[in-house]
Structures are given as C-alpha cells and as structure tokens.
C-alpha cells in the first residue's frame, strides 16, 4: 500500500459476505438499469449498458465467485471500475458505503495467498467483528480472462 497510511474502500455485499474495492479503482456507482445481454459471451458477462454513449460491459461478481444466482432488486448496484483501457461494471448485491482503515489494520489473507489463483485478494480489513475482503479488480479481471469463462473461482 505504498506510502499511504490509510486505505479507503467501497464496501459491498455479495452473498452476505462483505467485500471491498479501493476507491482509486472506482469511477462511479450506479443503480442497475436495463441491460442488453450478450449472445455467445462468457457466462460471467451479464450484459452491456449504454453509459453515456459508451458500450460498457457488466460483469457478475456472483458468477465469477461461483455463488448462486440472485435476482436483482432495489439494492442491487453496479460499481463502475476503470481497468487499463476501459470501464466495466460489476454487479453487487448492495453497496454498504465507504470504509477507511489504517494500513496496519489490513492483513494479508494468509490462507488464500498460497493458492496462486487468488492473487486478486489483496488483503483483509478488520473492523470490529467484521472482516472485509479487499479485491483488486485489475488482477481479478486478468485472472478471469486467463482462466477462461467456465471455471468459477473459489473464494
């Protein structure tokens, strides 16, 4: 986490687990609107939306993580993140808000790093009883593309 001594992240819910993405990677958060499905696309691609004139792909984190399908509801949100060259959206169950934690409170996920497929899990923030799993979206999407579409990831 470089010279910074604080981590700020957007916390969100997926299957009743709390995850976080650092705010630097996030462009905006929008409510889920109508999207167009993509024929013949890998299953984690939920569809595309027209984000101010840009065709923007929407990815289902639930599908990537091999979680059960859940219908979209009032709380569902799309977190728009910027990858190297384009913006993609991640569908999450709900957004909890911004959390900040001192770098000291971020621990490396000891059990998971041994598994080389999970390098996108960059840390765990403890806040009281709550554990928040930090995801590096860039690494996650690279992993997803490398692994191919079918295999879902174990978290």
């Amino acid at each position, binding site marked *: 986490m470089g010279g910074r001594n604080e981590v700020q992240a957007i916390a969100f819910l997926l299957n009743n687990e709390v995850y976080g993405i650092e705010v630097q990677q996030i462009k905006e958060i929008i409510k889920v609107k*109508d999207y*167009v*499905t*993509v*024929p*013949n*696309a890998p299953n984690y*691609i939920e569809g*595309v*939306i*027209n984000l*101010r*004139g*840009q*065709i*923007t*792909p929407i*990815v289902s984190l639930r599908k990537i993580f091999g979680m059960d399908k859940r219908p979209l509801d009032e709380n569902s949100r799309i977190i728009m993140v910027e990858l190297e*060259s*384009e913006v*993609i959206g991640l569908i999450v169950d709900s957004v909890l808000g911004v959390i900040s934690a001192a770098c000291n409170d971020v621990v490396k996920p000891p059990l998971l790093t041994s598994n080389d497929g999970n390098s996108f899990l960059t840390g765990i923030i403890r806040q009281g009883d709550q554990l928040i799993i930090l995801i590096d979206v860039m690494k996650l*999407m690279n992993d997803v*593309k490398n692994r191919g579409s079918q295999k879902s990831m174990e978290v």
Partner: protein
Amino acid sequence: MLKEKYEEVYFSEILDHIRTLNDILLNLEKDPKNEALIMEALRIFHSIKGDSAVIGMDKIAEIAHEGENLLISIKENKSSINKEILNKLLNYIDEIDNYLGLIYNKNKNTFKIIIYNNFKEELKIIKSFLIIKTLAEIGNLISIDPPYDMLSSGNVPQMITAVVSVHDTEKLKENLLKIEGITSVEIHPLEKLDFNCNEAIAASDRMNEIEQLISTVESGTKENTGAIVDLIRDKYRLSEIRVNVKSLDKLFNLVGELVLAKSRLNNIVKSLDSNELKEIQRFLEGVVNEIQNEIMSIRLIPIGQVFGVFRRMVRDLSKEFNKEIDLIIQGEETAVDRKILEELIDPVIHIIRNAVDHGIESPSERLKNGKNATGTIKINAYREASNFILDIEDDGKGIDPKVVKERAVDMGLISRSRAEAMSDEEALYLICMPGFTTKERVSKISGRGVGMSAVKSKIEAMGGSLIIKSIVGLGTKITIRLPASMAMIKILVVKVGEQCYSIPLSDVIEIVQLKEVKYIKGQPFMDLRGKVIRLFSLSELLGIKENRKQNYVVIVKKADDKEFGFLVSDIVGEDEITMRPFPQLLQGTHGLLGASILGDGKPTFIIDVMTLV
C-alpha cells in the same frame, strides 16, 4: 443532376457569405467604427455580387450591389454604422437569403460553346488564352473543358468546349472567329449542364488573375512565354480542392464497410492458425485505420462556420422577447465531424431558445436582482480526449428544482413520493422528460414540451450525453458531450427474442415474411421463387430463448454466392448507426462484429451473419 450539383456549390458559397456577413454586421453593431470590419463586409458583398453575376443570378447580384454601394458611401464619408444602416444591411442579407430559396428558374442565357481549331503547336498556349479572354470579356465564362491547367501546359485539343453565360451570342461568335486558327464555332443552348461545378467556381474566383496573366503573356516576347507559363502553372497548382460533400459521404460510408469487413476478417484470422495471414491482417488493419482516420479528419469542420448564425438568431430573439442578450462563442476553431455538427444544430438552437425564453430575465428584473441589464449566453466548444464538448451557459434565473418537481407532479409525469425522494440535481433532468413544459402558455419558439426530451434523445442517439447544471438566481449550464468523429454504417435492425440486433445492410439481399416454415429432415427451408433456401433461426445461433410468433426471413448471400435465410421474430427497420468501440472484454465473441447504440439509447450488437453459419 450536374446542374443541381453546380447550384449546390453556388448556394453553399453564398450561404457561407451570408453567414460571415451576419457575423460581421453583428460585430459592427458593437463596434460601429471598425474600418476593417466595414472593409470585410464590403468585400463579401462584392464577392456575392461577383459570384452571382457569373452564373446569372442577376437579382442577387443587384441586391449585393446595393449593399456594396451603401458600404462604399459609409467608407467614403468616414461615417459609422448606425442602427438604421445596420438594419438596412441585414435586410439585404435576408433578401438574398430569400432569393436563394426562390431561384429555381433556370438561367436562359447560358450556352455551351464548342470551338474547333487547328492551332500551330507553338502558339497553342497563347491562342487558348485568347479564347478564354474573349469568352470572359463578352460573356461570363462558367467553365471550360479542358480546364485551365491542361490548357496552360500546352494540352490544347482541336475541340474546346466552354459554358458561357452571354447575351450577345453573335458578337461572341464573331470575335472568336477573329482569332486565327479557329475554324468554326458552335453555340448550343444549354439543355443539360454538362460542366464541372468545381471548375466553375474556380473560374469565377480566378478570372481576374487570369486576365492579368493573359495580358502579360500577350505583351511578352516568345522567349519568356515559357517562364510565364510556369508562373501560371504555379498559380494553379492546387493545394486544396473542393470536394462535393456527397462524394465525401460516399467515401465515408465505404470506409465504414471496409472497417466492417476488416473486423470480419479479424474474426476469421483469429480462428485460423497462420502467422502469415496474421501478419497481412495486421498490415491491413493499420492501413484501414489510417484511411479511416484520414477520412474522418477531412470531415472535420470548425464549429464557427455554423455557429456564427446563432449570433443573428440571439439578436433577433432578444428583440422579440424585449431582452438584452450578448452571445459569446468560444472555441470557434474547434473542429468536429460534419455530420455531428449538422445533427447538433437543432439541439443547440433549442437550448439557446430556452435560454432566451426561460433563462435570461427582462432587463428590469435583472437590474432589480443586482445583475447587469444585459444577459449573457456563452457557448464554449472544446475537445477533451476524443470527445467534443459543448457548454451552453446563461446567467439567467436558473432552473428551480422545486418548481420543476411540482410541475412534473402536476402534469402526472412522476408521483409525489418519487418527486420527494429525488435530489435537486436529479430533478433538473425532469425537464428532459417527454411532455414536460414549464409554461402555462405555449410560446412561439419554446414551451411546446417536445423540446428538451427531443434534445436529449438526439444527443444520446449520437452517442453523447447531456449534463444539466443550474443554480437558482445565477444561471444554467448545459453540457453536451459527443464523440468528435464517427464511422457510419447502414444496418437492418431485427428483433430476436426481446432484444434488437443489427445486421449490416450490405449483407442483406431481401426480406420475406413467411406464413409457415417448411422442414426437411428437421431443417427449416423456404421456397423463394422456386429456389430452395436453407433457413437458420437466429435465436438458436445466438443461444437466445425465443417464442417466435411471426416468421420474417432475412436473406443474405455468402461470398460463395450461396443464399441463406435467417429467421427473426420481427423487422424493426433500417438505420444508420455509428460503430462504437467494442469492449475489449467482449472482443472475439463468436458472431459479433461490433456494437452500437440505437435511437432509443439501447446498445445493439452487430451480427456477423457470415461467420454464424
């Protein structure tokens, strides 16, 4: 056809002049003693007169002449432009504008003249100049074939054809025959205008220069003729040419097809494992991209060329509404695709009208609120990365979110609870809802309630977005963000399942509606005028669930001339769309060529029907 083409060029020239004149006069209103501006206005009136006279638009030439005279007298008396004179000049412009619209009576004085000669080799150049001179002196030379640069390089054939507007054809014939070496002259009334319009405009532009050069040639000795001819050649070595917009558009569309073919090729190359092919494909990709960029850049036009008209519009509108308004345009040199600019005009007019009508307050109200009596509308155009941004800002009374919410609830557009939950920023966008209007009465220019919703959907259809910001009491700023250039392709929009998909129109041969689909060994087929055509269900190929109630068949032809039909549930229509950058994440998806956004703002995929079967 050609005649229309020619008139088109003349019209666009004059419209150009009118536009510039409007700008200059409005500047003169602020700075009535500015001699440079007066001179410039004078020059343009003169050009209009000249251009119009050349092609026989006498009435316009007459009006322009009056404008010219009025300005000359001002210049000579060193007086300044007062309101009365300004209005007179503006009226001249309007009159010219009107006449342009009226003129469809063809010019009866234009003739095609065929000149036969047996000029001696060494005299050819000079003799051809004598022909030009005679034609130009007695009549108005519109065009000559072969063109000047050919003639001046000694390429003088035995038959020269010219189009001339002339009253005294006999005198012309007589004088031409005086030139030694001319054997006969034929004069034909012009039924079809078979001359090159570009040449014609170039002719009127250069007539003076040419005449000067001719006299030099005539007085020159034989030895230095060569040098003078070089001089002439230099003068007419063109670094710019006028291109008909239609052929540019055609080129542009062809490039669209080329880009499409390229992405199709990419898909195929990806599936084959050939490094040689990949290399060629990469090379092709580079060239096609470069062609595309080049064509795109040709189509870029500085917005000032079009937005100048808004000055006049704001001036007239503010009079109508008894308001005082300054329009400031910044970034006039910002270039944007011609098509985008064209499409932008209506939305911008609407936004400006709204600003004049609803935004800027009356002078007394402004003074009461401690503002300057004169309101300001500011247009600022600039580029940001590959986007073109247009801010339209007024310092009027702003949009009150409470009023807008109230109004939207009253009109039944949204529920009260929805309105209450809405943030102030969100509420501003209510003005873009279909049917929304703030006015009790419907005024002549705005408040018909189709306005902002039409503006928004138009901008979005172009792949852009609209941002509204407003502070009550201080003003409103509307930002339009658009791609700076775009590649257009023609598509057929079809419905498969619940979604609309696009098929490149260039792939489609015809569309047939079937009462029922026939099956042979479980495969759908149809009989097309005796031909058996194999059908494919597009929903099956794309893996989409579909409950087809109607059977429409889109017939396409593959490269090997085999025809196929694709079953779809409905035909939505034809459209011209811009290819959008295809998300990297989706690249290589089987059967998809690219993506775009339809008129309703929904994304659509362009189907590669060729690789699907």
